[in-house]
């Protein structure tokens, strides 16, 4: 990497970018489809409010290698990130276009040499490419989440997202609470032996919670409790 005369390293610049084929509207649609999808019984039915969507070009090192007689292309992020799904980016090789003038491109902060020890094969070339990613925020109840949609391929990198659970918490609370209030009142008025009955009922609740509809049978709990 070239150094400027005063010793400050010259900034890493992307030689081009993958064309963004998905506009904001389509990106939101993809995100919505993913959240509603049958494959993902993990998102609650509560209303999802979509927030801001930002198109960011993430810099990636594109390593061209020859491994076992085959040409292999490997992508590694050229800046630090905690987002999931970006460490081993897969994309079809399409034409790289010049970076749009008004593009929001993250600065590349990682030299390509960092990744060389983990790459296989013979080096055939390397270049810095900007990959368009839609960052879409959405709100479920009081929590805000973020989803990344690849602006080129439409792939979804969900990251941290809400999880639907089989437990019916209101029913669980009421089933445990109401009988106990009634039994303890009866015990005070009539006989303390009703407290023994309450203790017995508690044991039944603890071991047979599904019987009382505490767990939604649509998402059955595993035998081991998972």
């Amino acid at each position, binding site marked *: 990497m070239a150094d400027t005369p005063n010793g400050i390293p010259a900034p890493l610049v992307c030689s081009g970018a993958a064309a963004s084929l998905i506009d904001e509207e389509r990106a939101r649609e993809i995100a919505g489809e993913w959240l509603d999808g049958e494959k993902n019984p993990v998102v609650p039915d509560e209303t999802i409010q979509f927030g*801001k969507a930002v198109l960011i070009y993430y810099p990636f090192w594109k390593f061209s290698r020859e491994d076992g007689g085959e040409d292999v292309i490997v992508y590694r992020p050229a800046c630090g990130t*905690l987002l999931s799904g970006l460490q081993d980016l897969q994309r079809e090789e399409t034409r790289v276009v010049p970076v749009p003038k008004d593009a929001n491109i993250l600065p590349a902060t990682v030299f390509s040499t960092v990744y060389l020890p983990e790459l296989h094969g013979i080096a055939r070339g390397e270049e810095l490419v900007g990959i368009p990613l839609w960052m879409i925020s959405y709100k479920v109840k009081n929590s805000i989440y973020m989803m990344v949609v690849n602006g080129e391929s439409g792939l979804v990198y969900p990251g*941290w997202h809400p999880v639907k659970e089989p437990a019916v918490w209101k029913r669980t609370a009421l089933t445990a609470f109401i009988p106990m209030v009634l039994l303890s*009142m009866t015990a*005070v008025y009539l006989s303390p032996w009703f407290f023994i009955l309450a203790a017995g009922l508690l044991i039944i609740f603890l071991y047979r919670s599904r019987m009382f509809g505490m767990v939604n049978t649509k998402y059955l709990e595993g035998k081991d409790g*998972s």
Partner: protein
Amino acid sequence: MVLERSVEDLISEIQYKAKITRGVADRTVRDWFTKGVKAPDLSREGVVTELYLVYLPFWRFVAQGKAVACGYSEYTEKTGNVIRNIFEELIDEEFIWTECACDTGKCGITKLWLDPGGEVPYVRGSVVSMDAGGSAIEASKRGREEVHRMIKEAAAKRIQVLTLEKTFLIPKVFELVYAPVWIAHYSYKGGDYTAIVDGVRGEVLGGTAPNNLTARTRMMILTFTAGGIMIGSSIAMLIHPGPYQISELFQIILLLLGIAMCMAAYPAFKEGRTFVSSGSMQHILALSPATRVPKQLTDNEILNHESTLLKCPVCGEVVEQPWGEVVSACKKCHHLLDVTANTVKLVPYDVAKPDLLARTAMKGMDPEYIPFWKFEVDFNVTDRLAGGETKTGLPDISGKRSYYICAADIPRYVSEPWEIDLTIRNPEIVEDFAGREGTYLTILMNQNTARKLTEFLYLRYETEKPGILQVLRYNFQVDNARILYIPYYKEKTSYIPGI
């Protein structure tokens, strides 16, 4: 020792070396799957999709905190007697403040978990690191405020009512530290989670994991059962006591306790679907590229300075200041210059001549000249009260006199006795106008810091007198400040004063 100049472009950047390999990090995460109240089949069903090393940036501010706090705490005995304990606290400790300089989202890392030591210089681009966001100047301010709070808290730990409180903060280091972590993204039954492993010690620092649903359901049932019994029993007894002779107050407490238990348990077990150490993604915009905010010059600064170059006010030579040195000599005219972030001030200085006794005793040895800040101080004590005070032979150092603060890189436990000795004695200084050849130690403390230490020197001296100091009111005025090079003869590990 003391670093005063925390200019934006001169923040030192260091990093810890990663000592944990990918294999060890993977095993640590899988061990973590089996611990705590996580989903029981997590170790079997959890699939690590990504595991990579990344360096997280942290601001670190290290300062020497000094404080004097006096006051009392009271308690009432059963007999009604009020016992008052009076306290006099002297704090002289190192305080460290750290803050994560990037948004770690749900990973919840806010503070640096590693102690200083073993760092190496950070070379940009040589490791995968998160970009440090926000302004270093703002972070430095936050650090100072937080350390001030820590000093006050430490000083007033045992004291209920403070009658005297003085805190001083001597900044040592402000730096950007990069700490290595292994980020493990993993999926479990359609959900995506993250775990973070310390890249130095191999411990799991935090992250998210699916919780044990059965355990949570059972805890919910147990709490609501207990709450139901408490509420039901108390209501029944309040309406009709029956054979139970329990006070009404107890019944009401039982009722309130039952309600509180149910109200606290419901959200806790309902929302506790994952382990989340801390942190939030509320500030979603913080995930956009972080940029360092450059120091903004004020209009006044722009008007008064033709450029940001710092020049000697005597000869106009551009000042090239070594990092960490706050008072340095001009290369051209050899005047001492106090260089702050934006200005250069001339510092008057004297060189003391070794006295005849020292020269005779240490014949053949050249002294080292140790710089001291010499202040002409007027300490006017208006009110003083101490418990159990007794007369001692210790002299009174209030009033007008010279105070000495060592400005060289010499441990404080060595230099503090010198400072007290010189301040008590106020020795006659014979100036060496011709100047002498010898070793002149570098000045690493600027005038502001030394001035604070002057006040602390007096307060510490007062607290070290017999008795427990309670009230001390005074006027403190500094008339003159200059550097005085005092000759010391170094003999093995000790210094012998030359005056």
